[in-house]
């Protein structure tokens, strides 16, 4: 599975599909807090889009566009978002992950919870995205 399949159809179709997949992933992430979906699912779909590209366009080409290092950074940033959203309420008198205490002015507790979940789901989405790509790279890579 290394290198391009050198098949115009496969390549073209994947290039065409990937934006749609990613848009859908974003939709899944951003609607997770009030409908079916969420960070896990969206993250997986995002990762799937990257994997599709790696399979169809070849790893060497793909690694330049979305490098394994970037995947690690994405995962780490995701967890940071989660951490900040989780820990901030502590400073304002709430419990861990109690978004009602997020320091955003002008919002009621319910609204804060609503948006807090979105923030955390975004973080989770990034983590899953990054982690799955790392896993994929590790499994496909020739040498550890």
């Amino acid at each position, binding site marked *: 599975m290394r290198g391009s399949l050198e098949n115009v159809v496969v390549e073209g179709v994947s290039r065409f599909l990937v934006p749609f997949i990613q848009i859908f992933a974003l939709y899944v992430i951003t609607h997770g807090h009030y409908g079916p979906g969420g960070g896990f699912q969206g993250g997986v779909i995002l990762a799937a889009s990257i994997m599709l590209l790696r399979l169809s366009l070849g790893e060497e080409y793909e690694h330049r566009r979305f490098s394994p290092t970037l995947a690690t950074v994405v995962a780490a940033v995701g967890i940071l978002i989660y*951490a900040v959203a989780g820990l901030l309420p502590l400073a304002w008198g709430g419990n861990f992950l109690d978004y009602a205490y997020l320091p955003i002015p002008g919002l009621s507790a319910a609204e804060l919870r609503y948006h807090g979940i979105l923030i955390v789901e975004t973080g989770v989405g990034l983590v899953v995205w990054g982690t799955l790509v790392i896993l994929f790279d590790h499994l496909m890579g020739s040498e550890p």
Partner: protein
Amino acid sequence: MSHLPVLIPVTLLFSAFIILLGGFLKRDLAFMIALIGGSLSFVFSALGLWAVISGGGLRYHLGGWVPPVGIEYALDALSAFMSTVVTLVGTLVLLYSRRSILQEVPERFVPMYALAMLLLAGLTGIIVTADLFNLFVFLEIASLSAYALMAVGDERAPVASFRYLILGSIAGSFYVLGVGFLYFSTGSLNMADVAQRLPNLYGSRAIVAAATLIFIALGLKMALFPLHLWLPDAYSYAPSAVTGLIAPIMTKVAAYAVIRMFLTVFQPHYLLDVLPLMPVIGWFAAAGIFYGSIMAIAQTDFRRMLAYSSISQIAYIGLGIGLANPMGLIGALLHILNHAFMKACLFLVAGNIRFRTGQWEVSRLAGLGRKMPWTMAAFTVSALSMIGIPPAAGFFSKWYLLLGSVDAGNWIFVATILLSSLLTAVYFFRVLEQVYMRHSQEETVPVNAADPPASMLFPTVLLGAGVLVLGLSNNLIVSSILDVVVMSLK
């Protein structure tokens, strides 16, 4: 201070990811962050322990959701005690690990620390959570990082790690299955809540299934004979620092989970009278003590010997749990602490030996006593403690276990405890003899073998000294912490 229960695992969890980021900038940053994260978590645990001793338990509701709806974290005497032990020993080993990892697997430096922090996060998570399913999640976090960490070792490590993974996953799945039965019977996942609803359901077969599955799973994670098969290989092939980290605390945390299930979830009455699982654990443990000791005697590889000795020592904990009387349980809990110190010290000594000589054959350790005096002094203290020579710590856990067995009138357990300390003496004195009494022959030990650098020596010696300190202060620990834990049994 009320946030302590959540801060303990979360600090570790987040530092795991910060390590990934920091490691890109500078490799040693990973080590620094790990050390800071570990120490912070230890400070939180110690503060938690202090808070619990002085003012009773802490309960924490994640996200402000009240149980049974929300996930609850709780620090009581038992969990605060455990998390202090785990974070303390973990941090000391982290301090130790830098040079060892740099020598053995330098190319994995940053991920190793990230994984180690994940492992600690998982273990502390298991300890502080009061939610049955959350416990599963942390169990898997810890196990997954352990599989990955162990696989980095020598040639055969991935195979050993894979076996561990298969068995560990079976254990994890069994546990979830058991929790499923509990959940569908009681409608709750919160430990205290489940405990409250269980007495009405004692007749139910679903609860029998749940208890059996959960204890099999935890027994496997704890490496309680005969579910120990994964342990020797996994411990022997992993990098020194990894074994040093995993061996002293991981199985202990599983033992903690067993105690938690016994005391908090199912309640002693159920597991002693209705479904007598505790005696079963006790008898398997008694068999395991002998099995581990005898197998340890048969080993020629120092680390493998320590691995089998672990099986035997864990079985001591199992025996204490199986006795299910206050003395026995105190013995088990004290042995968790003592053995964590002793085994950490011993595995660090093994790491030091490997660091300087590159091998572990017992027959080739001759003359190291003079070349590595401090390392071997730490080894001697821990070995004597393992045998149960007072006033080293190991003696006192055996003392309580002995009193517990006498109290229960179980003379076979009494004989087991006593005989096994002789067996332990056999395999440790064999090593001591090599180390001190034989002169090094040519080409067995490098001429320049010496004590390792301070960053490795300090934790080793500190743990060795800790064994003595714990021994002398054991009554303080027992009376201020453990007595509270076993209160419900009295």
